[in-house]
């Protein structure tokens, strides 16, 4: 067992990295295969939260070729807990801009939903983070995914031994789920981006706070299995205006990166976001696994629109256990 896995074994639990005797192709059903020949990802410069964010998002959606009109849209920001000195959560200004952008693009409905991973005090979290003000100003419904009604889904991939999970009906009934993570490094998964952000849809009322069942099943493996189960329309908007480096996702250091990343392929978006942090996506376990069937991580299969990566890439620090992620891809 590698040193990192040994140390993590304490609470994050031993990762189930292999299923006994299964070949790589047996780990997902044919229906779970979503890789296409190429994926569009848009990298957009945005120096601050005062930038014209609505226009940036509308442009990002347009360049990706995403159809929004007539669809029910669920915006899923990252809202884990709140630290007045930190940058844990997706900035509410970006959520507000996304609400307006999707309205302009004639979404049938726009809903904001999250299942915070640590705190159960929604009123506090929404107010302290500033998200409640946004919801009030835009008269937008917020759904607490930790306590939503649920339906069980069989997982079409088998990187964990979970087999099936319960998902919130609000998520399952949406036409388009927009993952809105913060650009962050993560002390157990290397990075936390649009795919890891979907841990937040797993209902705490069944799986607890934190969603430790997923940690025991293997964090990287759970990320892949959850994302493979979400077969509705997907889109990602990564908040990299101010990201987090080091001991993320809670206690890391704020890092201004001045960037937004958009795309329909969450794997390609996360691979691009990793490159923007000068992290090799092929060395991030869950991206490597997802890259086999859920989306593209290879640079030559990603149609890069907007700003070139090199013009905005920054050397995000990682904790020593993830030093191996750094390097050219």
């Amino acid at each position, binding site marked *: *067992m590698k040193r990192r896995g040994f*140390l993590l074994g*304490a609470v994050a639990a031993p990762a189930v990295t292999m299923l006994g005797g299964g070949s790589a192709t047996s780990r997902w059903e044919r229906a779970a295969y979503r890789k296409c020949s190429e994926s569009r990802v848009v990298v957009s410069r945005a120096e601050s939260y005062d930038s014209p964010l609505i226009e940036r998002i509308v442009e990002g959606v347009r360049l990706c070729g995403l159809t929004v009109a007539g669809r029910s849209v669920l915006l899923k920001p990252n809202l884990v807990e709140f630290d007045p000195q930190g940058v844990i959560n997706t900035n509410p200004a970006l959520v507000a801009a996304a609400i307006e952008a999707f309205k302009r693009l004639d979404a049938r409905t726009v809903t904001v939903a999250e299942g915070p991973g640590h705190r159960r005090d929604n009123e506090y979290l929404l107010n302290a983070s500033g998200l409640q003000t946004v919801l009030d100003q835009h008269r937008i419904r917020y759904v*607490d995914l930790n306590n939503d009604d649920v339906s069980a889904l069989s997982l079409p991939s088998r990187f964990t031994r979970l087999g099936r999970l319960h998902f919130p009906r609000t998520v399952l009934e949406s036409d388009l789920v927009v993952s809105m993570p913060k650009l962050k490094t993560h002390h157990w998964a290397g990075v936390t981006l649009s795919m890891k952000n979907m841990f937040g849809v797993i209902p705490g009322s*069944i799986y607890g706070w934190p969603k430790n069942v997923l940690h025991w099943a293997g964090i990287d493996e759970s990320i892949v299995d959850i994302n493979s189960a979400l077969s509705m329309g997907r889109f990602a908007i990564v908040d990299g205006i101010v990201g987090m480096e080091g001991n993320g996702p809670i206690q890391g250091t704020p890092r201004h990166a001045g960037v937004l990343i958009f795309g329909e392929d969450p794997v390609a978006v996360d691979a691009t976001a990793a490159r923007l942090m000068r992290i090799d996506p092929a060395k991030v376990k869950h991206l490597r696994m997802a890259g086999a069937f859920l989306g593209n991580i290879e640079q030559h299969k990603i149609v890069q629109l907007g700003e070139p990566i090199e013009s905005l890439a920054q050397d995000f620090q990682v904790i020593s256990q993830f030093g191996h992620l750094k390097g050219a891809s």
Partner: protein
Amino acid sequence: MMLGAALQFLQNTQNADGGWGAVPTRQSNTEATALALLALTSCREAKATHIERGLQWLTDLQNSDGSWPMRRSPSHGSWPTALATLALASFDGQRTRALTGARWLLGNRGRSLGWWATLAYRMVPQKMAIQLDPSLIGWPWTRHGFSWVEPTAYALIALKRLNADLGGAGDGQIREAEQLLYDRMCSGGGWNHGNSNAYGVAMPPYPETTALALIALQDRAADARNRASLQRLEEMMANGESGLSLSWTTLCLSFLGQDVALWQQRLARCYARSGFLQETRVVALALLALGERISPFRLGAR
């Protein structure tokens, strides 16, 4: 005024099946229903029919092994068993059912970390990502899960209430769970979800979990760790304004003999402002915090 509005909210939002959902229109769940029942039984003005229907939903959902699931599906026993047990213990005719819930809790604690991690904690504790005592077991959120602060606190309260009826069968587990709470206490006092540190960095406490843990440990109020945590709670609540944290804090302080009139006023102002986002459990806890009758969360002194 708040009491009447909150009572009306609970009575108006009871589902047709007799239970309560997390928020109105959501399917009934055990946590919301148990807390709503406890709240209604604490209000003199509550209508008996709402209590009877709620009680019926809760008893119907109890599994044959004594446990409760969170919802009808998935149906396996889970963390709200402690709350349902506590709720049924408030009804004279439901004592037997409550005791089967308590016995299930005794037989369904959290998982150990396993020999590999336990050995690592023994050999190189300073290198572990999270500092804790792996030998201590409390209660998990999920079946066979790791022990966390909130479910451990609920189970502790339920077992302390019923341990005499169990002939003291819970003595050892109660003691161990108390030790676990102290082990998971944040540096300087208080509790968060259950990780007091990560990679050598102290993690801060939350007011709502701090107040809940202090309620579970209210019979050890003289302990220096309780006093430090109480001070931390009061500091955190200097600016805290949420229904959940105010409710638990008000309950906690009232059990410790403090005058909570000002806290109750803050709670009422908060309700007027936000309606507690219409969350059933928060409205129910607030009703309990307004305290017309002795709270089911109050324990006898040890």
